[in-house]
């Protein structure tokens, strides 16, 4: 059975339709890259999957693990194993990263009928995962994303993903704002989390990230539709000819209105 099945998904924000019929099937273990110019609807797709209420689904269906995803609250989606690595991770002053993550992990564990972690278990788990992300332990005691550099924020997202062990991870422009070293580390973290049970959707504007996180499938999005799908070589093709080579213009009008 597929893990995620998107059927003819339409979504709008305010009164503007952004997704105009997306269909996509993702099986466990697969990594799908979603590429496309600015304003093509990549991030909207990511947000809709996570349940952001700002975006209203007007038509279509999303089945996740046999359930109607669109009926579920954002927190239930997370508890059922959907993780969104945010393009712009949100700062939460006053709440320590450690406390936040422990609360998240324990809510998810509770939902799955697992025993909640105590402080010791949690710390051990976290130490192990921090090594993976080459993260400085002081980041744990700082407020969530507050005063973090761009790279630290992105690293923190993947670190959270490593701790929460989702079944479907959606990475929304995780590469944006990263220098090449940070990109390598983040990609290394992501690759370490690839496995036969876990699927990933990697949303990116540039092919660069896909040198490090090699996808099984690549889909090109334009004006709210998937205009082309292929294997990892499609990304390379795009790198050479650009979106224009596929006959796609930057969806500038859309960008201007976002």
């Amino acid at each position, binding site marked *: 059975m597929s893990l995620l099945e998107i059927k003819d998904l339409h979504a709008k924000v305010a009164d503007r339709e952004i997704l105009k019929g997306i269909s996509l099937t993702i099986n466990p273990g697969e990594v799908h890259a979603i590429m496309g110019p600015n304003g093509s609807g990549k991030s909207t797709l990511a947000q809709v999957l*996570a*349940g*952001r*209420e700002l975006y209203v689904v007007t038509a279509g269906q999303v089945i996740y693990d046999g359930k109607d995803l669109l009926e579920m*609250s*954002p*927190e239930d*989606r*997370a*508890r059922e194993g959907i*993780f*969104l690595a*945010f393009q712009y*991770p*949100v*700062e*939460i*002053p*006053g*709440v*320590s990263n450690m*406390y*936040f*993550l422990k*609360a*998240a992990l324990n*809510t*998810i564990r509770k*939902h799955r009928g697992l025993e909640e972690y105590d402080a010791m278990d949690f710390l051990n788990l976290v130490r192990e995962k921090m090594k993976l992300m080459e993260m400085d332990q002081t980041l744990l005691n700082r*407020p969530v994303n507050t005063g973090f550099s761009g790279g630290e924020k992105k690293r923190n997202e993947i670190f*959270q993903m490593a701790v*929460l062990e989702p079944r479907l991870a959606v990475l929304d422009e995780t590469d944006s704002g990263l220098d090449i070293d940070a990109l390598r580390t983040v990609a290394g973290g992501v690759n370490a989390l690839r496995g036969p049970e876990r699927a990933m959707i990697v949303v990116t504007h540039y092919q660069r990230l896909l040198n490090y996180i090699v996808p099984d499938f690549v889909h090109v999005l334009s004006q709210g539709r998937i205009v082309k799908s292929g294997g990892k070589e499609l990304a390379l093709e795009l790198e050479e000819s650009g979106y224009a080579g596929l006959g796609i213009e930057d969806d500038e009008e859309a960008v201007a209105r976002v």
Partner: protein
Amino acid sequence: MSDSTNTIETFANQEYKWGFVTDIEADAIPRGLSEDVVRLISAKKNEPEWLLEWRLKAYRHWLTLTEPTWANIHYPKIDYNDIIYYSSPKSKKDGPKSLDEVDPELLKTYEKLGIPLAERAILAGVAVDAVFDSVSVATTFKEKLKAQGIIFGSFSEAVQEHPDLVRKYLGSVVPTSDNFFAALNSAVFSDGSFCYVPKGVRCPMELSTYFRINAKDTGQFERTLIVADEGAYVSYLEGCTAPMRDTNQLHAAVVELVALDNAQIKYSTVQNWYPGDKDGKGGIYNFVTKRGACRGVNSKISWTQVETGSAITWKYPSCLLIGDNSVGEFYSVALANNWQQADTGTKMIHIGKNTTSTIVSKGISAGHGQNTYRGGVKILKSATGARNYSQCDSLLLGDQCGAHTFPYLEVKNTSSQVEHEASTSKIGEDQIFYCRQRGISTEDAVSMIVHGFCKEVFRELPMEFAVEAQKLLGVSLEGSVG
């Protein structure tokens, strides 16, 4: 704590031993205020002549005063002649007859806060004859305190048993003429608490549980006086975290603290009186005068308050730093949700040398709530080397609420240091969504963010109080986001 809770529960679960009711006191005093009413109150309490005179003086002065209007609060005019100034015990005839008649929302809140079943009926004001015998519970505590020479009991009792102590300190920090509400309280106060900790004694327990049982019916005009003699220490917890069902509209309390040489008083409040409904109907008007005098050298008074209830809060727990090296602290969390209005803060008056004060104020506004911080730091000429640090932070939820800050600084000694920091932030929808995407519910997310915002204050609260206060904030903010 758990021991005392057990004691209470044991009592609560006991069958009522005296299977009859005597309704001794019908409300004999008619509505309104006059010298006769003041005399009547004093007579009912069998008070000595000097106290009656003291009340009358307050009453006569009150007549010359007008209600203050400088605070950033709005409410219909209070008719002081439409209030019953004495009813003891408070008439229970109007209350619900059983828990079945109590607003289920209120009961749900008790459940969430983990209030023991037995206490819920009392807090909800159910007209049961006696859920448990609070006098007996109180006695257990009293014996323990008495062994150390600590006097702790109701104000009326103290007037009878320790008139000299009461006379020496009553009104010495908040004089009868201090302000409109303090003068009113001085004239008509019904009861309250009195505590005296003798020289060198460290009070062995938080004076809390006692209060939770005993203070339920102290009425609209309560009076608290706490004296810590040289080298003494006491931590006093006022109020309870559960919302009190109380139909009174006006509360005007006075609290006076006196700390002598090297003495320390820690006074913590969690106020969660009825805030009115979602449309701003009903709710308590809470006009309170709280002040502590650090009279002795190296003395310290610390106020910590979590104010989540009342339709209107008008309250400025303050410190007079008279003794050299004395320390005043004010840690506050004030919440204004729905149509609540809070105008609260502190005054730190530096008089002695090298006196220091710290002010940490956290205001949370939600719904249509209006939250005002009003603080005064005064450094007199005599206060060489005085230092103050103030921090006022505001957190907004939604876009209908307001946060206001009025810090007043008056410095007359050039050797002093005064620091003030302020910030305003907003809980954004993006923060809530971020939490939810990690599996955390909206309710828990708000509570987590608010707790993070308040933690500098919460860590000043005694442990179990802090846990309850955190839960309480979560409950009070329910439905304010999303």
